[in-house]
């Protein structure tokens, strides 16, 4: 599947921003199942410094710095991405969840490369605290000996059923346990909650930020068409599921990720990969507008 994607972020500031540093995670990263064919970033105001790097998790990262006073910032990206279907996997063939925990835990020998990589995503991170409450909440999804893929599917369904998608009720600073208590939030909160439930048991999970194509696919559980999260940037979860490696789940829409999702970057949580993060001197209050369009290109 090939997509043309536009992503525009605009800030209007109430007073001059005198100086600003931003980091952007806006270029789709290379992955076995997708390819970014074309990508441009345009930034207003045009006078800025820019540097492109790769971050510690292998994502493309762009830094920009503004030294002149400005009242408005606009970052627009335009890209073409090819997404391939992923191989079918059978849930029953995945490893029992406790065995993964045991394999990831330290026991003195040389760990496998895959397991050591997975260990990076197994612990508490700034936005995902590891808590007993999360272990307890997800307990029903993890009966003894159940294959990890079945556990992850069950957890995804549970979150989809029990959490209400509600915009504007949480911010990036809302603690995870508060989200759990309120049972409300946006795709970030769904993803963080699912990651927290997995890591609290010693499993590895990463946060994936990207885009979602609205439309054709239907949720297995509800039969509703996927809409939540389109029109903005989206977030979901990758779970370490040996022997299949990392498989992705979208708890906001209750689907395993396929060709409707376009990944941009992944990390431990939102903080590692937020599309645009900046620290400003001045600016007072600001108004933000974001728009995303994802259009399939017919060949």
């Amino acid at each position, binding site marked *: 599947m090939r997509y043309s994607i536009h992503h525009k972020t605009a800030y209007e500031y109430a007073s001059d921003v005198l100086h600003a540093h931003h980091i952007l995670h806006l270029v789709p990263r290379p992955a076995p199942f997708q390819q970014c064919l074309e990508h441009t970033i345009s930034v207003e105001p045009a006078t800025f410094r820019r540097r492109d790097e790769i971050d510690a998790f292998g994502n493309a990262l762009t830094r920009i710095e503004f030294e002149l006073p400005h009242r408005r910032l606009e970052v627009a990206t335009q890209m073409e991405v090819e997404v391939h279907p992923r191989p079918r996997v059978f849930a029953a063939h995945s490893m029992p969840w406790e065995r993964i925990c045991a394999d990831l*835990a330290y026991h003195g020998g040389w760990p496998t490369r895959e397991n050591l990589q997975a260990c990076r995503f197994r612990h508490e991170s700034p936005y995902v605290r590891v808590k007993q409450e999360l272990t307890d909440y997800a307990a029903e999804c993890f009966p003894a000996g159940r294959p990890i893929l079945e556990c992850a599917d069950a957890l995804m369904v549970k979150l989809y059923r029990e959490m209400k998608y509600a915009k504007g009720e949480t911010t*990036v600073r809302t603690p995870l346990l508060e989200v759990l208590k309120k049972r409300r939030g946006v795709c970030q909160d769904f993803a963080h909650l699912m990651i927290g439930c997995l890591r609290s048991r010693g499993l590895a999970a990463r946060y994936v930020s990207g885009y979602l194509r609205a439309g054709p696919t239907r949720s297995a559980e509800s039969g509703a068409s996927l809409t939540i999260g389109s029109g903005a940037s989206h977030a979901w979860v990758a779970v370490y599921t040996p022997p299949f490696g990392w498989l992705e789940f979208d708890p906001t829409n209750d689907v395993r990720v396929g060709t409707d999702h376009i990944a941009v970057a992944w990390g431990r949580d939102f903080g590692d990969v937020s599309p*645009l993060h900046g620290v400003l001197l001045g600016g007072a209050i600001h108004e933000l507008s974001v728009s995303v369009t994802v259009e399939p290109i017919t060949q």
Partner: protein
Amino acid sequence: MKSEAANDKRAVTPDSGAEASLATYVPDPRRYDELLDENGALRAHWRPLIERLTANKAHDTARRALELTRRLIVENGVAYNVYTDPQGADRPWALDPLPLVLSQDEWREIEKGVVQRARVLDALLVDLYGPQRLLAEGLVPPELPFGHPNFLWPCHGLVPRGASWLHIYAADLARAPNGGWWVLADRTQSPSGAGYALENRDIVEQVLPETIRDLGVRRVRDFFSEMRERLRSLSDEEANPLVVILTPGPFNETYFEHAYMARQLGLPLVEGHDLTVRNEIVYLKTLGGLKRVHTILRRLDDDYCDPVELRGASTLGVPGLISAIRAHNVVITNALGTGVLESAAWLGFLPGVAERLLGESLQLPSVATWWCGEKPALDYVLANLDRLVVKPTYPNQQFEPVFGSDIKGDDREALIRRLQARPYAYVAQEHVALSQAPVWRSNGTPSFAARAFTIRVYAIATQTGFRVLPGGLARVASENAVDVVSTQRGGGSKDIWVLSRGEDEPAVAATRRLQVSMRPDELPSRLVENLFWLGRYTVRCADNARLLRSTVRVRVDRGVWIHAVRICRALGVIAKDLQPPASLRDDRDPYGIAADVKRIAWCASQVRGHLSARYWRAVVGLQRQLQEAAASRQEPREALERIALSLAALSGYAAEDMTHDEGWRLLRIGRRLERLQFIAGLLAQHLVAASATRQGQVEWLLDVCHSISIYRSRYFVAPRLGSALDLLVRDVHHPVALAFQCSSIARDLAELAASLKISGDPGLEATIPEFTDSELLTLEGEGDEARASRETLAARLRALHVAAAKLSDRLSMRHFSHTGDSQSVWT
């Protein structure tokens, strides 16, 4: 000190005196005793000290030493802030002047072990932030770095300039019952306490001057010159690298130490918003503009240092700092991310690390430690809980260390469940019976008592390897908590004396320059801005207090009272519908006394490192006076009188105690500008009043201006408007007069320009009104012409007031305007 000198001349007496004084000192058979050997005899390296101290009137020696120590701590303003102190106040530093004595041989072993350990930890950091070979080979658990909040992913793959991570290292050591030393903890992030160690030595040197000299105690001060040289040598800039100390600010518990180190090392003490990163270069916002920073000694935690890449919401850090570090444009000590090694969980793995990375066996053992992430370790810990202390693996866990033996019943079950649920997050350590050393017990008759302690030993990286501070900080447990040593929980401290056997100290590098002061153009803008406003608010508050006091004083004279209250209201010192005393009570009135005192306290707290101890105490006292005045409904006149007096003391201390540098000059400009505005405004208001020429009103005016007695001695006439104006407007020598303020401001601006090598500010855009003696007579006359001339003069004074405000704004724009708080945004 006299008696000590006298003692020195005595022949050293046999044990009898010493032993009698040691009657109160009780060794504990379960612990190693520093002072006495197994037979109860004084150990050789303690003998000279104890004999001196007990040779004659031991009680007096102890009492004098304790008193002097207490006084020096107060005078030097040594403090330790405790975040949770309900009063939010500083606690004076606790120092027992009786030192801990260590022999040269013993010290050699400690020194070697600490140096080796610093090398091991540095190599471990290089691996963790680089190839992670140790993880791949299974020599260290991935749980340790990856679960640690101070393992900073943005620093992975980053090679700091000079490729060295650890520049300053500290180890907490304790002595085991068998006499060997154990490492309790490693401090790798920004070890605190070295400044306190230096301060302790300064005080003990004054308390026991002859003893310290005669015993051949190794010097500690050289270590700090070396540290300074090291910091200066880390950048390319050879001629004049700018090194700064980055502090989280006055609310940090060890802020005193940050300020003290800054003074000792002659380096600017800065906060995050004093620095800015432009094009991957770090700059300090100074009085003279942006100055490039080459090296940062940080006292800020790893994850707070850069809100762009680390904790996004931190306002303490420097946005963009990591990009500058990555570009090798700045060196930060210790490197960001070094805090990852601050966990007891590493201790058990260090022997393997030393073997693998250095091919050496680890010399200093750690206290026996089990990281519960390994199944056999967890099983052992659960089976032996009673003899172990359970601690968190990661510093951000909400879990206080617990003694297994103290925890029973349901709590024990809960603890076991916690350990089983997330074993890798817990560490258990053997409960160490700390060794004991003598302290001077101060309650009642001073005598020796035994207390448990640990020591913190410091090392710095130099061109020729790590060098250890010959001394350090001994931390003494409080009487009740024998094996818990924590400054936050109210223990004390001691100086450590390392004896040398008369050998020469290693020669100090010739390049070393002592007594360096900050360059005037390196003063941080924020600091100077706060000094400027401290000057302004102190004078504003003093002037307002005097205005109100003089007004309250004339309450009985109705005519003058009406005149005075009207002017108070016109000047905004009291709100329209209020009476003068209200200003003391209501800090919501933005121009009242209470509000001014709040502002003074805030500015003072921001520049605390530049204030003397008594200045700070006076600020605290001022706040207390105001609270008392507001609460007790005290006679307002008396309260105002006292506040005015305290403010006068502040001005005195500012003049007497502070370095007369450019910051101080701006404080003085602030004071003069404020006084200029006040007097000009007051006179303008007075002149346009119908009763301006009345004697009572003029007398009130002179009283407000603190000029009654000088007027009397100068003019020999009852208060008259003309003479009062002569004094208050054009007398260049009278410190209240407008002419005095103007000439002082002009002089300070010129000197500021000269010392910063910048073009001078043009100064006030209005001049002091000039008048002839006959014009003065006209001014105090009656009738339309006189009134018109008073109106004209008032207008000129108002213009002067406006010119002062403009100058103030101009100075702010020019010298301070780069500062401000940053905010974070996300999508």
